[in-house]
């Protein structure tokens, strides 16, 4: 007997409400950590994008005294960033898939839903509204109390107020169930690692037990902020091309190409079209399916395109990275490298990496993984960096002995980091990323090998200096005694020659 099957559709916030595990809100401990993290990242983004030296204050407190974990907490995160326009403020925090981060530009947040998920989670667990307030001008501050209508995927505004502002920036306050006892190590490690990659930020954290962590900025140099960009032709798939054509107003392939692709001007476009065998004057909208496929295959195989530039990316830069690592790890030897931009599936990315040898407080090998300046703390073994370090590099080949104190810091920045989960904890192993990581780490390891080699050979040379001075007289004395001769042999002339022969033998 066949039954009738009911079909239906749900809203995005409904989907994520049902599947909040996907976004890192698995249990009270992990959820508390995820909430801290999502808000801090939003705050840092809000400063970076405006070129403001960040000053972030995080405060976690018990909602009621004397309870045991898991229990409700109040979480406040406050920044001096550029603020959010009051017209968008409720939507930005009360609607899934709504945000400023759906353009092709590097940012910490990416799915446009981290903050909203944290509010969703707090609402589910404590049923208290979130309080968000923001000032874009340092004059007026707009405050909202809001809940999320999950069914409809929209914010419900409970209260709206305008007050005089003391300074620019955004403040968010939520009440949520958490387990700080278990989350504490991760949260403090998160803030510590964030300060390593953001040495131009000042971070304050006050925990529910009243303990405070302060990280003062050590540099006022900020990374160049990124600007939105067009997609690179090497990474375009058929679907992407189809959509670009539909959205484009250009009527010829030449114009279409030169106005829609990253670093493609008329000259490049026309060379490419000739290579691919398409008429420059053809209306892109007339391409049929087969032609679209051929066009994409030609885009992929053509070698004449310029490499993606990094204008849309905001790498930390060697100087800042070096300052951050130096301050955090105090290594004996440190090298950093910023790889040239590369791309996967049309998304440009840059790998930055640091290698710190003989660090304070580190025994053996430790990985610091970052993606778009966000530290990744969970699921290390599923990450592409672990895969490269453990499976692809043989550290001993670089003269690194087991148990050497060694920190490997990797930073992948991209307009889109290929996370495997919405919880943003580990990066998928795209071959292009794997290759760049390998190149970066090999370069650093070669420099470390040179350093270790120099260190050793310096000591060698000094030792050799005295060898002839020591052994020739002994040789003379023993051969005299053994042969029963009366006087010492005349060996002095050899003292100098010894050195020369040595130099020849290298």
């Amino acid at each position, binding site marked *: 007997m066949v039954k009738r099957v009911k079909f239906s559709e749900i809203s995005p916030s409904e989907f994520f409400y049902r599947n909040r595990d996907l976004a890192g809100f698995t249990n009270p401990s992990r959820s508390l950590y995820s909430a801290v993290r999502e808000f801090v990242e939003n705050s840092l983004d809000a400063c970076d994008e405006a070129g403001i030296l960040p000053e972030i204050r995080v405060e976690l407190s018990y909602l009621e005294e004397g309870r045991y974990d898991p229990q409700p907490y109040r979480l406040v995160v406050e920044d001096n960033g550029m603020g959010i326009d009051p017209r968008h403020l409720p939507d930005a925090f009360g609607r899934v898939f709504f945000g400023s981060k759906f353009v092709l530009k590097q940012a910490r947040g990416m799915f446009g839903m981290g903050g909203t998920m944290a509010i969703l989670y707090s609402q589910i667990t404590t049923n208290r509204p979130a309080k968000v307030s923001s000032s874009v001008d340092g004059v007026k501050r707009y405050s909202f109390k809001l809940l999320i209508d999950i069914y409809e995927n929209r914010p419900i505004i409970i209260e709206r107020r305008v007050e005089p502002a003391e300074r620019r920036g955004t403040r968010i306050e939520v009440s949520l169930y958490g387990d700080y006892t278990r989350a504490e190590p991760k949260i403090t490690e998160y803030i510590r690692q964030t300060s390593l990659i953001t040495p131009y930020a000042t971070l304050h954290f006050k925990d529910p037990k009243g303990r405070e962590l302060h990280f003062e900025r050590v540099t006022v140099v900020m990374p160049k902020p990124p600007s939105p960009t067009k997609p690179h032709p090497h990474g375009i798939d058929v679907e992407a091309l189809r959509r670009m054509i539909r959205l484009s107003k250009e009527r010829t392939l030449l114009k279409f190409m030169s106005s829609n692709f990253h670093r493609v001007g008329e000259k490049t476009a026309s060379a490419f079209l000739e290579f691919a065998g398409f008429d420059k004057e053809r209306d892109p909208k007339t391409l049929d399916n087969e032609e679209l496929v051929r066009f994409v295959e030609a885009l992929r195989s053509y070698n004449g395109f310029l490499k993606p530039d990094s204008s849309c990316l905001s790498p930390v830069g060697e100087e800042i990275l070096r300052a951050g690592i130096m301050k955090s790890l105090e290594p004996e030897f440190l090298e950093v490298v910023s790889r040239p931009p590369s791309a996967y599936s049309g998304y440009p990315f840059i790998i930055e990496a640091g290698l710190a040898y003989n660090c304070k407080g580190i025994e053996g090998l430790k990985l610091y993984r970052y993606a778009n300046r966000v530290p990744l703390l969970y699921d290390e073994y599923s990450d592409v960096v672990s895969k490269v370090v453990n499976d692809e590099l043989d550290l001993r080949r670089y003269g690194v002995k087991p148990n050497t104190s060694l920190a490997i810091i990797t930073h992948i920045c991209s307009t889109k980091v290929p996370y495997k989960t919405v919880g943003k904890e580990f990066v998928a192993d795209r071959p292009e990323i794997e290759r760049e990581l390998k190149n970066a780490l090999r370069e650093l390891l070669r420099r470390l090998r040179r350093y270790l080699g120099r260190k050793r050979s310096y000591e060698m040379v000094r030792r*050799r200096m005295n*060898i*002839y001075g020591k*052994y*020739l007289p*002994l*040789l*003379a004395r*023993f*051969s*005299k*005694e*053994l*042969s*029963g*001769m009366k006087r010492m*042999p*005349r*060996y002095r*002339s*050899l003292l100098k*020659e*010894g050195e020369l*022969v*040595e130099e020849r*033998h290298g």
Partner: protein
Amino acid sequence: MRRGTAKRRKEEVEASLRKLGLEVYRKLDSGDFPEVRIPSRSVRNIVYDKRLRQYVLGKAFVRRYAGNIKHIRSLTQLVWLAFFVDKLLKDGKTSTLRDVYYSAQAYNMEFKDQAESNNIITDLEALLTKAREDFNIYPEERSSIFGDLTIEYTIPGYEGKRINLSSHPDGYMIGPSLSSAEFVETSAEMVLAVEKGGMFTRFVEERVHERFKALIVDLAGQAPRATRYLLRRLNRELGLPIYILTDGDPWGEHIAAVILFGSANAAHLRELTVPDGKWIGVWASDIVKYKLPSDPLSDVDVKRIHELLRDPRYKEGIWQRELKNFLKIRRKSELEAFSKYGLTHIVDRYLPEKLELVKGL
């Protein structure tokens, strides 16, 4: 019975040492860097000499040239050692490997570890083709001997003194004085060397020395060189046949083979082997024949057998046959396994049967 062997060897060694000293001295004195060429002991230079029936070194040499900064240290160590050995011999003193290591410090020389100093000692052995016992350098391990053999000491303070090695049934240590003694007389007609101290005691108790007219030697496992040298002298100087009795496993077989044909890591030496000696068991076939209690071969045992099968010393006869038998039965037995039939069974039954059998081979 030849006499004076021990004394003659000592004089040979002293002459070679002086020669080495003179060569180095003359080079230095004429403003040249001295050099020494030592037969190479690398695996590629170790060859099996069928005629001598032992491993020997080939024609390759290693050069120690004072002009090379990588060589000067070890060359100086070698010359120091020659000088030190010369003193030992002149003063009639002996030394252990360990003593050599520490003694260097008295002369502002040093070895970075015992292995380095041992290696230089082996260099000098190879250079002079003489064993370190000839340099009065003895290892810690000692084996022992018992039976009717009268010897005459040559060491200082005992020159000319004689004793007979049958008075103390627990056995006499084989050390520097016995090694350097001359043989005076014996009523023995053979030498029975056993792998273990327990079996040695059993043989003495069962009066094997009288019943078989034998000198009994306790090898104490893999025989020290002084013992191998003594066995050779008993064979060469007194014409006594040498019979070796070991545990029934590849390790026991190898103990016998090393005594008879030498070891690869003493390929730079001669006069340590007894090619006419016989291994009288325990053979793999004895384990079956005598229904001995046995244990299965371990992986290490099997691996060892396959190594030995590739070794030229084991290419033929009993050596090859018994290795294959071990592989076939996959078991091994110890000498004590005969106790299953009573403590004296090995002496009453096995030994006479086996000696009879082996004489026919």
